[in-house]
C-alpha cells in the first residue's frame, strides 16, 4: 500500500520521505526547517502544531536551533510563516492523499498559509481508498475533515499547471513507521 501511496503522491508533485522511527523523522523535519532558511522575521518563520507521532518536541533545544519557529499556532503566526509542520491522522493509498481531523484550526493552519508544508503521518494509518476512510470516520464527531493531495495548484491561465496558488508550493510528506 505504501508503494502505491508514494507513487500517487509523487505523481502530484509531493516529496515523500519514509523513516523507521520518530527520531530520524524529527531530525529530518528540523533539518528541513533549517534548509528552508527559517528565521525570526515575517515571511520566514515556521509554525508547528505538535502531535503524538513526533511526540512533544523539546521547545528549548529547537528554539535555540530555530529562533523563527513557534509551537503556538495562531492566525498571525501562520500568516507570517514560510513553513508549517503538522501531523495527519490517515493516508489514502490510491490517490496519494493525507487526511486529518482538522476540527482544531491549529492542526489546519500550518498547511494553509505557508509556502512549504511538512506533513507527518504514521505509515500504519494508510487506508486503501477514500471509501474506507469515510466509512471509518464519523463526520458528526468531526467539524472539519481535511484531505490533502499534493501542493496547491491551478491551471486557470491558459491551462498551464502552476504549483502554489493560495496554499503551499511544496509538500513534504514524512512517513513514520513506528
Amino acid at each position, binding site marked *: 500500500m505504501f508503494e502505491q501511496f508514494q507513487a500517487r503522491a509523487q505523481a502530484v508533485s509531493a516529496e515523500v520521505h519514509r523513516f523507521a522511527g520518530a527520531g530520524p523523522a524529527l531530525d529530518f523535519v528540523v533539518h528541513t526547517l533549517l534548509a528552508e532558511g527559517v528565521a525570526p522575521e515575517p515571511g520566514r518563520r515556521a509554525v508547528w502544531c505538535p502531535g503524538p507521532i513526533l511526540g512533544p518536541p523539546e521547545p528549548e533545544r529547537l528554539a535555540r536551533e530555530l529562533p523563527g519557529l513557534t509551537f503556538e499556532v495562531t492566525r498571525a503566526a501562520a500568516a507570517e510563516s514560510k513553513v508549517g509542520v503538522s501531523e495527519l491522522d490517515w493516508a489514502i493509498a490510491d490517490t496519494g492523499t493525507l487526511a486529518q481531523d482538522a476540527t482544531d484550526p491549529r492542526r489546519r493552519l500550518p498547511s494553509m498559509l505557508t509556502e512549504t508544508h511538512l506533513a507527518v503521518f504514521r505509515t500504519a494509518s494508510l487506508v486503501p481508498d477514500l471509501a474506507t476512510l469515510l466509512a471509518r470516520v464519523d*463526520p458528526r464527531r468531526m467539524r472539519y475533515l481535511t484531505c490533502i*493531495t499534493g*501542493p496547491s495548484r491551478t491551471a486557470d491561465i491558459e*491551462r498551464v499547471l502552476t504549483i502554489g*496558488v*493560495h496554499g503551499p508550493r511544496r509538500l513534504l510528506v514524512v512517513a513514520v513507521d513506528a
Partner: protein
Amino acid sequence: MADRTGFHEHIAEALQNPNLAGALGRFSEAYAISRAKAYEGIDFEKLRDQIVEAKGNAAGKLDVLAGRFEAEATRAGARVFRAGSPEEARDYILRLCRDRGVKRVVKSKSMATEEIHLNQALEKEGMRVKETDLGEWIIQLAGQRPSHMVMPAIHMTKEEVAAIFSKEVKERLAADIPRLVAVARQELREEFLQADLGISGANLAVAETGSLVILTNEGNARLVTTLPRIHVAVVGVEKLVERMADVVPVVRALPRSATSQLLTSYLSVLTGPAPGPEGEQKELHVVLLDNRRTAMGADPRFAQALRCIRCASCLNVCPVFRLVGGHVFGDVYTGGIGAILTAWFDALEASEHIQGLCIQCGNCTQVCPARIDIPEMVVELRRRLAKEQGQPLLQKGIFRIVNDRRLFHSMLRAASLAQKPFARDGMIRHLPFFLSGLAEFRSLPAIARRPFRDRFREIEQPRGLSEKVAFYAGCLVDFAYPGTGEAVVKVLNRAGIEVVFPEAQTCCGAPARYAGSFAVAAQNARDNVAALEGAGASAVVSACPTCTVALTREMAETLEAEGEHEWAVRARKLGEKVVDFSTLVKRLVDQGRLRLVPGEGLPAVTYHDSCHLKRTLRAEKPPRQLLQAVGHEVKEMFESDMCCGMGGSYSLKFPEISKPILTRKLESIRKTGCGTVALDCPGCAMQIQGGLHKAGDAVQVRHLAEIVAERLA
C-alpha cells in the same frame, strides 16, 4: 436575451476570436487523452451506475433530504436557510451582513452564487467582494462572466491576464504565468486575512450527517471557510445526497472528468461550524437554494439533469462549444447542460437561442459521469418552446409540405428540374439568391433526376426468394443518393432476400422532431408505421442511421409524447424489426448467408462514424469489419466519431458553425492520406462530399452499401 440577428452576431464574434478557437480547440483535443488516462483501471459504466443511483435517488426526494440536512446541520450548530428563490437567498445573506456589520467578503468558487447574482447585490450594499479562485478573480477584474464552468477564464490569454493584473497592482507585469499566479497569491492573501465573511459553494451536501463536501485545487476554499469569522455556504439542493457513502462515487468521478485528476489537491468535509483560528466559535450558515429544482425533479423529462455534478465534461467534448465557447453557448451555466439549467433556473424563453446550438451529436452522453442525456432534453425544450411560441413561419411552411408526402415528393421532383442550370456532375456549387447560403461552404448533391422510388420498380430481383425485407430509403437516399438504395437491394438479393419498397413511406420525422415540431413528426410516424407494418417483411432495413434511430425508437417516443398511445405501441413493435444496413449485412455474413470476396491490393480507406450509428445504435464495429472483409485496410482518422457538422437542418440554421466543424473533419480525412472515406450515413455523405467537392478535393466519399455491393461472391 439578444434577438435572432443579435445571436448570430455573437456567434460571428466568437468564431472570429482566434484565442477562443485556439484555446478551446487545443483543450478539447488534449482533454480526450488526459481524461482517458485519469480513468485508467476504473470501470466507468459501473461508476456511472453508482452515481446515477446516488444522485438519482436524491433527485427524487430533494424535499425530504433538505429537511434531513437541515435537522442534522442544525444539530451540529449550523444555521440552515431554505431559499425558494434567488431573492430569498440574497435577502437572507444581505440581512446577515447588515446584522453582523460585514464589510469585506471573500468568496471561493460557487455557481449557485452566480445564479443568484450575489456579488452585485453585496456590492450594491457597499461591501468589498473578492473572488479568490484564480479564474474567477480574473473574470471579476475583467468585468466578464465565466465562459466555462470549471475553467472560467479559459477564453483569455496570459497577455490579457497580465494586462488586467497590471492595472490592478499598478505595475507593468510580464505575461509570465508563474509570476501572475504569485501576484494573485500576494494580492488576495490580505483579503483572506481581513475579510469578515467567507462565502463558498459545495460540491455535495450529505443529508444524514448535515455535512458539506468541498473540492478545490488552489486551497482558497479552505481559507474562505477558515479565516473569516462567518462562513456562508450557498448550495443548490441538487447537491444533496442521502448518505456519506454516496459521496464516494461522485468524488471518484468529478476530478477525473473535470480536470483529469485522480483527486483535487484539497477535499474538505465540514459538519457544523468549527472553531475559528483564535479558538473563537465561528458562525456557519447554509443557504439551501431551490429555485425550481424541486419542480425540475418532479418533471419526468428533466429530473435527470439534477444528477449533474458540474464536471463540465459535456462542454469539453462538444463540437459546438469548442468553437464558440460559453459566452455564446450558455448563460451562468454553460454548454448543453447550461441550456437545460437556464431553461429552469431562469426561464424557458431564456434558453431559446442557447439550446438551438446543440447539434444532437451525442458526444456528451458518452462522457457524462451521471449518464445524463442532454440532447434528449434539448429536444424536449424545443418541443415545449414550439408549443408555447409556435414555429417560425418559414419552418412551419417547410414542415407543412413535409407533412404531406405527395406534395413533398412532387416538389422534390420539380426541384430536380429547377436545379438543372446549377448542377454539374451531380453536384451543385452555387445557388441563386436567398438559397446561396446553403451552398456557400459545401456543394450540394443535385436532386436525382429520378428518385429511388421510381428506379426501384425497374430493378429485376431474382424470383423465388424465401425472405422478405422492407427497405426504408429516407429522403436523402430516395431523392439524392438513389444509387445507395440500388446497392442495398443488390446486396440483400445476393443473400437470398427479396426487397420490398412500401411506396407510402415518407420522411422519418427526425428533422421535425429535432426542431420541436412533434405534431409533424407524429404525422410522419403514423404514415411510416402504416406503410411499413403491412409490408409482410421480416425486417426493415435503412441505409441512413438517423432514419434507423427514428424508426427504432423516436417514432414511438414522439407518438407517446403526443398522447397517441396505440400508435406508439405499433411504432414500438415495428421498431423492433428495424436495423441499419451494416449491422444487418455483418449478421448475414456471420450466418453464412452472404459471402464477400476480398479484393486484391485494395487501397486503405478511412471511416467516418456517423453520430447516430456510433452513439445511439452503438454500431461502430460492423462497418469496419465489413471494410476489412472486402479487402480494405481501415486507416483511422483523428476523432473519427466527431460530428461532421451536418446535423440535418442544423447546417441550414447555423452554417457559420457547421462550416468550421466540417473543415476540421476534412482536415482529419486528408491527414490519413486515403483516397476514400467510407461512411454509413447519407447526411454525412452530403456534408463531407459537399465540402470536398467545393474545395476541389479528389477524395471519394462512399457509402458502405456501394463498397460492399462491388465485392459480392
